[in-house]
């Protein structure tokens, strides 16, 4: 990791720890035992300390700064597209059911991964969705979401 990356990681870790530590302020400490906040406070304080050490280590490091490799914009676009498709999938899963939503997700995911044989992609997406649906609902008796009006 670059020094910048370590510094950023350290700060994120410390801020996260601080955020969670602050959320325990309202919890009262019982007379006996740790209570609800005792252990979380111990963990968050340790997290803050470790984050600060990571950040300080990055600041004080004498490492030669390696020029960061060029960001692959295609990958970033693919990643954002895949994450966006996750979110849309989650939103539609209960409404449209497993079969209707999973086949398009599979198609899109395969496309993002670089599979460009569109006809085969459609066939594979539909067959895989049907197969998984059959195995889980019929064989394993797991009630996957179904489309209903």
């Amino acid at each position, binding site marked *: 990791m670059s020094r910048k990356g370590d510094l950023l990681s350290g700060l994120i870790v410390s801020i996260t720890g601080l955020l969670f530590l602050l959320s325990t302020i309202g919890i009262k400490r019982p007379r006996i035992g740790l209570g609800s906040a005792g252990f979380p406070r111990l963990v968050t304080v340790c*997290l803050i300390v470790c984050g600060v050490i990571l950040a300080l280590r990055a600041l004080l490091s004498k490492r030669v700064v390696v020029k960061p490799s060029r960001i692959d914009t295609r990958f970033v676009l693919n990643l954002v597209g895949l994450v966006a498709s996750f979110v849309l999938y989650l939103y539609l899963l209960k409404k449209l059911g497993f079969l209707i939503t999973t086949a398009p997700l599979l198609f899109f995911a395969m496309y993002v991964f670089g599979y460009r044989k569109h006809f085969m992609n459609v066939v594979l997406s539909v067959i895989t969705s049907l197969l998984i649906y059959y195995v889980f609902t019929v064989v394993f008796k797991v009630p996957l979401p179904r489309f209903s009006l």
Partner: protein
Amino acid sequence: MINYWLEGLRIAFQPFNLLIMLVGVTSGIVVGALPGVTSSMGIILLLPFTYYMKPETALLMLTGMYCASMFGGSIAAILLRTPGTPSAAATSIDGYPLALQGKAGKAISAALIGSFFGGIASGVCMVFLAPLLARFALKFGPPEYFALAVFGLTIIASVSGKDLLRGLISGLVGLLLSLIGIDNITGSQRLTLGIDALANGFNFLPVMIGVFAVSEVLNRLEKKGERAQITASLGQLFLTWEEMKSLVLPIVVGIIIGTLIGVLPGTGGAIATFLAYNELRRWSKNKEKFGQGALEGVVVCETANNAVTGGAMVPTLSLGVPGDAVTAVMLGAFVLIGVRPGPLMFTQQANIVYSFFAGWFVIQFMMLAVGFVSIILAPNILKIRDEILMPIVLVLCIVGSFSLRNSVYDVGVALCFGVLGYLMRKAGFPMPPLVLGLILGPMAEQNLNRTLLIAKNDWTILFKRPISLTLLLAAFVSVTLSLIGAYRASKKEATRS
């Protein structure tokens, strides 16, 4: 006693029961290998099929699923770096690098051999040492369990890779995640940051699916082409004589630690595998090999993993106290099929007990046979192109996390943790400590709380009780040795550069 055994063997070797065991073992391997489908889920899913069977037959089928799924978990851990079961998480540390080196077949073969010996040895322990070990486990109270959790957390030092600080942060993140939601002691909400959805906390499995499987899918999106390298050398399935000899020590370590951890109620395969891995790595002459693709690392994890099974059945059968999460499900399944575990079971349902004992060993041999077939078939998954395989893995992750509680929320958790896991990997944070934190967090907190409640805030109780003192000393020694090792390694590296 001999009559009981003869009757047990007669029942176990009935053709129908053999067929049922084969179904249990085969489905166990498949369930274990499917990312997101755990042993517990497999047992629950198999349960409806057992309702119309005799109790002993049903018990044999469920046991087949239980034992074989432990091995099955290693297949996905090695081939896809997506542990099929939580206890296979440690297997992926060395298993996946071995797959990257074109030794996937050898890694699964070694895992199978370890699983077989682990299962056999833990079966022997279950049969002969059960009453003794169960009595010892009864002496464990909250201070001892807390000390055990602390000892478990010291393993973070050895699974952190080169950067101990990053490993520590990862472990602390795991601990923090395990604490979010409702506190078990007081029943109050905490660390939810005002978000209602966080009140239920995070279920272990979706988090695991996210950080191991989904993040791997995202990682694959960035690094295309690695899979071709694995596919090129799938032919090496059998181990050489030298490699076989190197497996003896890991198998012994795995058996001892796995069986002991299995016997302690409340622990489980995940803790056993990480502990066994840590101990073997610590005493190994080739420490640097661990994490880079050491066959010994895979074997010790899988041996411990399967050695837990028999150990965990000890308190389950003799006391009716489950040894881990999976045996808790098994216990529920026993009751549902008409078997009542407990001391009286050995006299009142002796036929069931001894057919179970006899069937246990038959199942291990069956697992060995079916497992070898699966080795030949399993690496074929790798021949599927990344562009097709990874989206399918993604959908399996979605289904796996959904079917746990039929909840879309769990799918969301898996996907969110997938992104978090990916970002953590990119920033160089190792994943195994996060899992350790998640597993050991509740155990450490609840038992420390109970300890302080019992001792009225007197912390010295932890050092007054011999077992907890021994465990805490072991934790101290473990950390010290790891720190010395890390210091020596960094010094060596500095001298080299």
